[in-house]
């Protein structure tokens, strides 16, 4: 299902989920920390709409959008963020550590990259036909183990797609202070074919991601996809040091929802918005009423 309306449904589900998280964090209903995906929704939706049930996804600390685009349940995710028994991992993992079906996320940057390569090799060894997708951000480009993973993926033809989301800022450090040289050159150095896109249009991302995934499936070998994107929210909760005008400008020109909603019938879109608003509100409330896990 990747018609305009169903793509919009996924984009707006992530948007409302993350807005609900940030709105309610100060009220103390969530514990720990969170990293929202506001502004980047089209990446997860565009890439993961191509997924087959057997495919495997690895994500990072900023994983809510990936999880929801994968098909994860908003109520279970709210409950996990609240530390409730009904959470994705029974409250043990929290915001950054999710596992459901073939979806895994973890909070140390780069650490899952070789693990994703191992998963891809295992599935290839078992001849399951599954491919693996691993998401990383520009911040992870500073982690050495990523390059060990790229090297082995290429050497051993692991069927894995590396999706590098460059939101141009790692916590508070802009990409120009942390990443020397070209991002694409990092993948190309390991002979991994690389596609690059600077867009917030889910259809464009969907199209390029589809070609990359097709190549992974056809060749049984790694590919890379660099998605230049924009993070609208803070790194975590209240730690945005950027100029608010700069963020406003991004929201005007790079909002995946604005870009895509122009393709929809306004009445249909309004109806869908109401439906998702209701769905997220209900999920939030239901999670809030769940019990805490037994210690």
């Amino acid at each position, binding site marked *: 299902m990747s018609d305009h309306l169903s793509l919009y449904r996924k984009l707006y589900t992530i948007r409302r989920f993350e807005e609900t998280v940030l709105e309610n964090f100060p009220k103390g209903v969530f514990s720990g920390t969170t990293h929202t995906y506001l502004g980047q929704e089209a990446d997860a939706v565009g890439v993961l709409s191509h997924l087959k049930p057997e495919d*495997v996804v690895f994500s990072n600390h900023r994983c809510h959008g990936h999880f929801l685009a994968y098909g994860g349940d908003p109520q279970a995710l709210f409950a996990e963020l609240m530390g409730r028994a009904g959470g*994705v*991992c*029974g409250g*043990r*993992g929290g915001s950054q*550590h999710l*596992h459901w079906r073939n979806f*895994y996320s*973890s909070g*140390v940057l780069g*650490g*899952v*990259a*070789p*693990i*994703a*390569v*191992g*998963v*891809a*090799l*295992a*599935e290839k*060894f*078992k001849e399951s036909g599954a491919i693996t997708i691993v998401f990383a951000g520009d911040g992870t480009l500073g982690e*050495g*183990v990523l390059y*060990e*993973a790229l*090297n*082995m993926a290429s*050497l*051993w033809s692991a069927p894995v797609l590396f999706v590098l989301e460059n939101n141009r800022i790692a916590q508070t450090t802009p990409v120009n202070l942390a990443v020397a040289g070209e991002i694409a050159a990092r993948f190309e150095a390991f002979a991994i074919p690389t596609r690059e896109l600077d867009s917030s249009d889910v259809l464009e991302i969907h199209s390029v991601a589809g070609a990359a995934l097709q190549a992974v499936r056809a060749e049984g070998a790694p590919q890379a996809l660099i998605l230049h994107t924009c993070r609208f929210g803070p790194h975590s909760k209240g730690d945005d040091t950027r100029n608010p005008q700069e963020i406003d400008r991004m929201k005007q020109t790079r909002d995946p929802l604005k870009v895509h909603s122009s393709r929809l019938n306004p009445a249909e879109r309004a109806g869908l918005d109401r439906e998702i608003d209701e769905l997220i509100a209900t999920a939030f409330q239901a999670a809030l009423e769940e019990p805490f896990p037994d210690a």
Partner: protein
Amino acid sequence: MPSVLESLNRALHRAFADCPAVILLGEDLLDPYGGAFKVSKGLSSAYPQRVFTTPISEAGICGVGAGMALRGLRPVVEIMFGDFLALAADQLINHIAKFRWMYNDQVSVPLVIRTPMGGRRGYGPTHSQTLEKHFLGVPGLRLLAPSAVGNPGELLYRAILETEEPILFIENKLLYLLPVLDGLTLQDFHLSEFSAQPTDQPGANGNPATPAYQLSVRGAPKPSLTIAAYGYMAELARQAVHTLAYQHEIFAELVILTQLAPFQGEAVFASTQRSGRLLVVEEGSLSFGWGAEVVARAAQALGTGLRQVRRVAAQDLPVPASAPLEARVLPAVEDIVQQAKLMV
């Protein structure tokens, strides 16, 4: 009897033959080289599709192994020198050890990471260490260490095929060429096996019990001292027990552990209950080490039944390259004898 090296090598061959999901990853594994210490010899020839000789990327290959284990394979990772485990610490501590619990018991990581540790070969500060103490307090990580006594190969085989948890398997380099010692070959000693049932330990469900061994000089009276050791130090402690008995008439009981973590101390407690004195012996540096944990656990378990404790370990220094310097830093048979004499 086979050597410890042969015992381990045969166990790997047996695991490969018995289970098609066993995979081996490590540096320089291809025959005729067969790995730096030859424990993996012959596997790349017999199972070319299942042996990955890897780039020098310790963190990366531990991660690849973890990914394979998550998806139903039974990988074994060889780290060429235990010193290099430090490079894989994030994979071990933050990923491999955590996945099962952190993902609410929905996954398991049946991964074995084997590595040689230890000095006495003049390799110097970065190739001679006994670093396992840094990985002993990691919840979710099981740490096994064979000695020459018992069945090192069986310990490894069961780790690979019968255990659902990640395992760090520590092989002291000097064990490799020693013959495996059983009750028949240990003529001067009485050997008994103490099988702990690890059912009371979190995360141990369904995993096999690992043996501990108890050694005393044949015909000795009730022990006046318990010595606890593992790995190659168990061999030095065995020689010390012999010397103590025949030259000093001090009768010690040696308890050799094969599982260091999660802590399994029942065999140590049972012997110390009888002797009242506990000497712990390790090749790692003294401070904050394995022996300190054993002593603390024994004190808690035995109360006033534990009258005296001492520790033998390496000095808190890097391991020197020069042979006489290295011998001074690492614990020897004579150190064990000397400390034992101070206790009895």
